[in-house]
C-alpha cells in the first residue's frame, strides 16, 4: 500500500515555478517603463540603496526608488495578502466562492479609508503623519465591522450558507457604496481625485511612509494566518467536527476574521479596492495542488504577488503612455472567471441538500 501524504514532486515543482515567475515579474516591474533600465544598471541602483547614486545613474535611481520599487512592493504585498485572505475566508465560510470583495469586506474597508480622506482636512494638520496610521486603522475597523456582520448573517449554529454569505455581501457592498457616495458628495476637488482611485484601485499611489505602515501589518497578519494551516483543513469539515478533533475553533475563527481583515484593510488603504484576487488565485492553486492548506496558503501568496505584479505591468503597457486602473483590469479578467467558476459549480450548488 502506497501512502502518499505531505509534499510531493508536483508541489515542489509548482513552488519553484512560482518563485521563478515572481523573480521575473519583479525584474520586469523594475526594468520596464518609459525609461528602460538594463540588468547591470538595476543591480547598481538597487545595491546603492537610499544613498546618493553615481551621476550617470541619477535618473534610474530616482525612477527605481521613488516610482517603481514602492509600486512593486505594493503589488507584492497586496497581491499576496489578498490571495491569503481569500483562502482563509473560503475556509471560514466553507465555500470556494468567498472573496473579500464579493462579501463586502473590501468596500467596507474602503468606506473607512474614504472617511479619513474626506475628513482629515478638518483634523489638525499635525495629524498628517498620523494619517498614515489613521488610514489603515480606519480601513481595518470598518472592514472588521463589515466582516463581523457578514459572518453573523451568514452563519447559523455553526453552519454557513453560501447564498446567505453572498447576499449579505451584496447588502454590505450596497451600504458601503452609499456611504462612499455620500462622502464623495461632501468632498472637495482634490479629495475627489483621490477618491476616484478607491473605486478603481491602483498600486501606483503608495508612498514609502504608507508602505512602512501597511506592509508590516500585512506581513505580520499573514504570519499569524499561516499558523492555522492544519486547522483550516479541519474547519472545512464543519466547526463542530473541527471541535471534536480537538481544535480551539472559537479562537481560530476570531483569528481568521481579525487577521484577514487587517490584511484587507491595509491593502485597501494603500491600493484601493482590487477585486477577485482572493477568488482567482486560490482556485487556480487548488486546481493544481488540491485544497490542502499547508500547500495552498504559501503557494497562493506566491501566485497572488506575481499575478498582481503582472497585472500592473499590463496596466502600464497596454495603453502606454496612459495607465489602466488595475482594479478595472482585475475585474475585467476576474468577472468572467467568476462566471466560469459558477457554471462549474452550478450542479453542486443547485442540488445541495
Amino acid at each position: 500500500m502506497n501512502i502518499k501524504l505531505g509534499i510531493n514532486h508536483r508541489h515542489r515543482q509548482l513552488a519553484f515555478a512560482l518563485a521563478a515567475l515572481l523573480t521575473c515579474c519583479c525584474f520586469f516591474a523594475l526594468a520596464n517603463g518609459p525609461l528602460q533600465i538594463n540588468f547591470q544598471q538595476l543591480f547598481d541602483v538597487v545595491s546603492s540603496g537610499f544613498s546618493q547614486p553615481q551621476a550617470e545613474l541619477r535618473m534610474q535611481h530616482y525612477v527605481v526608488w521613488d516610482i517603481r520599487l514602492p509600486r512593486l512592493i505594493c503589488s507584492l504585498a497586496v497581491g499576496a495578502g489578498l490571495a491569503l485572505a481569500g483562502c482563509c475566508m473560503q475556509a471560514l465560510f466553507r465555500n470556494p466562492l468567498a472573496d473579500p470583495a464579493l462579501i463586502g469586506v473590501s468596500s467596507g474597508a474602503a468606506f473607512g479609508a474614504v472617511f479619513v480622506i474626506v475628513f482629515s482636512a478638518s483634523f489638525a494638520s499635525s495629524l498628517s503623519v498620523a494619517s498614515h496610521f489613521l488610514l489603515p486603522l480606519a480601513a481595518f475597523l470598518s472592514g472588521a465591522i463589515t466582516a463581523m456582520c457578514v459572518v453573523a448573517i451568514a452563519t447559523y449554529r455553526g453552519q454557513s450558507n453560501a447564498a446567505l454569505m453572498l447576499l449579505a455581501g451584496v447588502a454590505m457592498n450596497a451600504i458601503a457604496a452609499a456611504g462612499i457616495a455620500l462622502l464623495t458628495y461632501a468632498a472637495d476637488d482634490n479629495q475627489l481625485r483621490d477618491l476616484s482611485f478607491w473605486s478603481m484601485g491602483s498600486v501606483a499611489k503608495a508612498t514609502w511612509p504608507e508602505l512602512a505602515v501597511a506592509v508590516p501589518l500585512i506581513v505580520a497578519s499573514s504570519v499569524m494566518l499561516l499558523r492555522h494551516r492544519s486547522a483550516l483543513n479541519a474547519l472545512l469539515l464543519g466547526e463542530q467536527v473541527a471541535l471534536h478533533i480537538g481544535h480551539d475553533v472559537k479562537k481560530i475563527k476570531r483569528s481568521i476574521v481579525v487577521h484577514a481583515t487587517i490584511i484587507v484593510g491595509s491593502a485597501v488603504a494603500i491600493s484601493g479596492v482590487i477585486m477577485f484576487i482572493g477568488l482567482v488565485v486560490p482556485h487556480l492553486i487548488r486546481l493544481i495542488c488540491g485544497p490542502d492548506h499547508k500547500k495552498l496558503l504559501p503557494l497562493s501568496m506566491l501566485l497572488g504577488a506575481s499575478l498582481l505584479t503582472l497585472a500592473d505591468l499590463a496596466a502600464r503597457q497596454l495603453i502606454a503612455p496612459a495607465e489602466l486602473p488595475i482594479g478595472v483590469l482585475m475585474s475585467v479578467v476576474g468577472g468572467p472567471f467568476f462566471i466560469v467558476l459558477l457554471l462549474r459549480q452550478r450542479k453542486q450548488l443547485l442540488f445541495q441538500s
Partner: protein
Amino acid sequence: MSLHVQQLSVSVSGAELLKNINFTCEAGQLLALCGANGAGKSTLLKTLAGERDYSGSIRLGGVELAYLDAAEQARLRAVMPQQCDLNFAFSNLEVIELGLLFCRTQQEKNKVLTKLCELFQLDELLDKNYMLCSGGQKQRVQLARVVAQIFQCGGPEGKLLLLDEASSAMDLAITQKAYRGLRKLCSLGVGIVSVVHDLNVAALYADTVALLSNGSLSHFGEPAKILTKQNVEQVFCAEVQVLCAPESGRPQIYSAF
C-alpha cells in the same frame, strides 16, 4: 477508561429532551443506543460529545466531561457525526488524516494509517476524491477518520468512540465489514457508544443495548435480555416477531406485515 452517566438530563428552551438517564459503558464494550425517531438518541450522543449543556454527571475515565476542554476531550474520545459535508476536493486519505491533530511526525501518521487500512480494508478508497464518493463510501471514510483519532496519543486502549448512525448509508457487506472492524477495536480495549437504527445490527454486534423512549432510558442490558417482543413493541409502537438466531444465539427482530 469507562463512561459513567448518572442522572443526566438535558432541556432546551424549556423542553425536556433527556430525563434522568443512568448507564455505564465499560472499556471494550459496544453499547447500541436504539429507539424510535425523536426519542433522544442523537441528543444523548451530542451531549456525550460535549455539544450540549447538561445537568447530572458524565464521567470519562473518572473526570467530569464539563471540566475537559476541546483538546483534552479529543485525546480521550472521537465523534462521528450523522452527516459530513465537504465542498473541497480532498482525497479520502487527506480526509482521514484530518483526524490526526496530535501526531507530530509523518511516521506516526503513517503508522496509524497502516493499522486503519488493516482494520477496515480501505486500500481501494484512499486515492479517490471524497466529493465524488457515494454516501456509504463517505461514511466509511468518516469512520476511518474518527478511528484514526483514537489511535493517536498512545494507542486506542481505553478510549471512547461515539458514533451517530455510522452505517445508515452502508450496504450489507460494508456494514458487516465496519462492525467487524468495530468489534476488533473492542477487543483492543475501545469503548463504543453507537446510535443504531437497525435493531438486528444492534442485536448481532452489541454487548449492551439501551432502549430510549421519549427521552428516558426504558431498558438497558444484554441484547438477548432486552430485545424481547414485549420491549420492542412497547418502545417502537409496532408489531414485531422476535426469533433467536441459531448460530449466534442472538435475537433477530422482524416486523409483522
